[in-house]
């Protein structure tokens, strides 16, 4: 068996198998479960990296499930019948983000969750969420996308409702679940429309068929609605602060990665599926939603009193930067000026930066909550005396997120500012304004939580949690100091996949 050829499917199937077996191991002994989880995470991570290496060095990877040969994408007659995994550079990039986030999250969760509060179930849900994200990133089939969309939705909502002893957790989970389900049903309706019109489900094949008729446009509208909702763009973001604020910290960073995967699906729909009938109006829609997201979320963050909710609004505002960057690229894709590519690069690079920085912040918030017992900014204070490392990490993450040089947020934001300036200076000004607001927000949070006299004795943070945060902090520093390497080797191919990779994508599947 040829491992490199099978790597795309194994990267999804191994965590699924691992998740199915996890409760059984836990019934035997919890340490067996932890060992199994480490094994599964290691294998999955290695496989994903293998896929990414293949994609970045060789090109788009396709895998036909159930065919006589993995590359045997077409049935006699020249049309795809089976589910085809299609991994291009953007998918691989998102896959790498999920690996980073999941590994960090699991190592954080090891000591963060209590054994008698459903740790096994939470870990299983985390694994399933990871597998769902990988499945969403790697699939090349529209209905399969929906199925894994639902996997991530349900796993995410289960994790959000983890704190059943308080009323806020289930409430946030219910609202999130309603939004996710309605969005998912819209996506399914769009798929049904497209299937009814064209009798196919493969992304590439559909992309070639779509002609821009009324039904196609309505399907596009439904897809946009569902995916924008899952990505958390204002004003569809309402679920996001609730969910981020209430989920346990190790789950939140997976949720953040989940919104990015939804953004990926959105970009896939806009650039690949509907790339043939691209339209500047849709680009402007994405740009304006992105700008709205930036401003509203940052402004809302200023007035929050709950530390988790505050950081959550910060996380929502970051989605705006990605939408802005890629939306600028989408707006100008017909003319293809150079700054369009830079904008897309900025947007995609910001995905990685956001995952690292906001993940660090959320983990720090989780440590604060565990140490101090609450998250209300009116009651917190002086934690810097006891939680030295956590304080540093929180500061690092908030500065990175606010875009202070030389940390990682700045590099991607710079690219977005510049390119959106070339499209319209107002956009750039608004984006910078949002960054300033974010800086204010995080200064407030930092001052409120960590500075000042010691109010009460804080519990020390376990070492494994610190290590998890340290990994992300190193990521913040490294991405900030060497952005050029990352952009050239990882981000640029991914951006190219959106910018002009549509034909390559179709060719990889359809052969012509």
């Amino acid at each position, binding site marked *: 068996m040829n491992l490199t050829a099978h790597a795309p499917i194994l990267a999804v199937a191994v965590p699924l198998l691992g998740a199915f077996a996890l409760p059984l191991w836990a019934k035997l002994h919890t340490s067996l479960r932890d060992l199994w989880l480490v094994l599964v995470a290691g294998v999955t991570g290695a496989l994903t990296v293998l896929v990414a290496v293949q994609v970045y060095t060789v090109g788009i990877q396709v895998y036909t499930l159930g065919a006589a040969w993995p590359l045997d994408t077409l049935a006699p007659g020249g049309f795809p019948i089976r589910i085809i995994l299609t991994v291009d550079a953007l998918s691989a990039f998102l896959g790498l983000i999920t690996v980073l986030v999941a590994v960090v999250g699991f190592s954080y969760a090891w000591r963060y969750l209590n054994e008698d509060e459903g740790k096994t179930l939470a870990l299983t849900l985390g694994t399933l969420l990871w597998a769902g994200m990988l499945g969403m990133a790697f699939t090349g089939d529209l209905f399969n996308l929906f199925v894994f969309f639902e996997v991530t939705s349900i796993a995410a909502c289960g994790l959000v409702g983890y704190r059943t002893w308080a009323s806020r957790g289930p409430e946030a989970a219910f609202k999130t679940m309603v939004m996710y389900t309605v969005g998912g049903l819209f996506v399914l309706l769009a798929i049904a429309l497209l299937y009814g019109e064209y009798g196919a489900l493969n992304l590439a094949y559909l992309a070639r068929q779509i002609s821009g008729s009324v039904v196609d446009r309505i399907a596009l509208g439904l897809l946009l609605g569902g995916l924008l909702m899952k990505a958390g763009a204002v*004003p569809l973001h309402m679920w996001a602060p609730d969910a981020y604020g209430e989920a346990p910290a190790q789950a939140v960073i997976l949720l953040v990665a989940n919104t990015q995967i939804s953004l990926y699906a959105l970009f896939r729909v806009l650039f690949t599926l509907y790339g043939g009938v691209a339209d500047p*109006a849709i680009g402007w829609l994405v740009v304006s939603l992105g700008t709205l997201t930036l401003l509203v979320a940052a402004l809302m963050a200023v007035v929050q009193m709950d530390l988790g909710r505050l950081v959550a609004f910060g996380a929502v505002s970051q989605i705006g930067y990605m939408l802005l960057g890629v939306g600028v690229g989408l707006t100008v894709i017909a003319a293809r000026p150079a700054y369009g590519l830079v904008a897309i690069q900025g947007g995609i690079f910001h995905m990685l930066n956001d995952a690292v920085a906001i993940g660090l912040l959320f983990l720090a918030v989780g440590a604060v909550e565990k140490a101090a017992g609450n998250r209300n900014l009116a009651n917190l204070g002086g934690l810097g005396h006891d939680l030295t490392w956590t304080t540093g990490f929180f500061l690092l993450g908030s500065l990175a997120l606010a875009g202070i040089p030389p940390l990682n947020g700045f590099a991607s934001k710079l690219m977005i500012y*510049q390119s959106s300036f070339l499209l319209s200076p107002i956009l750039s000004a608004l984006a910078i304004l949002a960054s300033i607001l974010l800086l204010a927000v995080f200064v407030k949070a930092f001052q409120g939580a960590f500075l*000042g006299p010691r109010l009460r004795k804080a519990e020390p943070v376990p070492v494994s949690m610190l290590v998890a945060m340290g990994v992300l902090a190193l990521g913040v520093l490294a991405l900030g100091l060497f952005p050029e390497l990352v952009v050239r080797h990882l981000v640029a191919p991914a951006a190219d996949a959106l910018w002009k990779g549509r034909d390559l994508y179709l060719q990889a599947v359809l052969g012509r």
Partner: protein
Amino acid sequence: MTLLTGHGFWNPLLWLAAAAGVTLLALVVWSRGRRDYTRGTDGELPFLSGEKMEGAHVGGGHLYWGFVEGLRPYVERLRALHSGLVNDYVGWLVVILAVVFLIVLVGG
């Protein structure tokens, strides 16, 4: 190291060098400052309405009071929109869907 962004560039090392220069400048300025400041006087305490308080902490909620107060009309409106009512959440979804439909069907 240099990240080209179309019209400009970004190099963290250059920035670090510049930052070091600025820090040096600041140190120089600082070293030429007043010498008669001493620890343990009132200058260290936070000034809260003239009250002397031991171990006082300006909580996070009180920061930017004026700023938030100035923006209150906007902020209050935004907060009202985040009503926490699940019907409103779906309502926003429908509104955005309507906008998207209009743009997709009419605008293009």
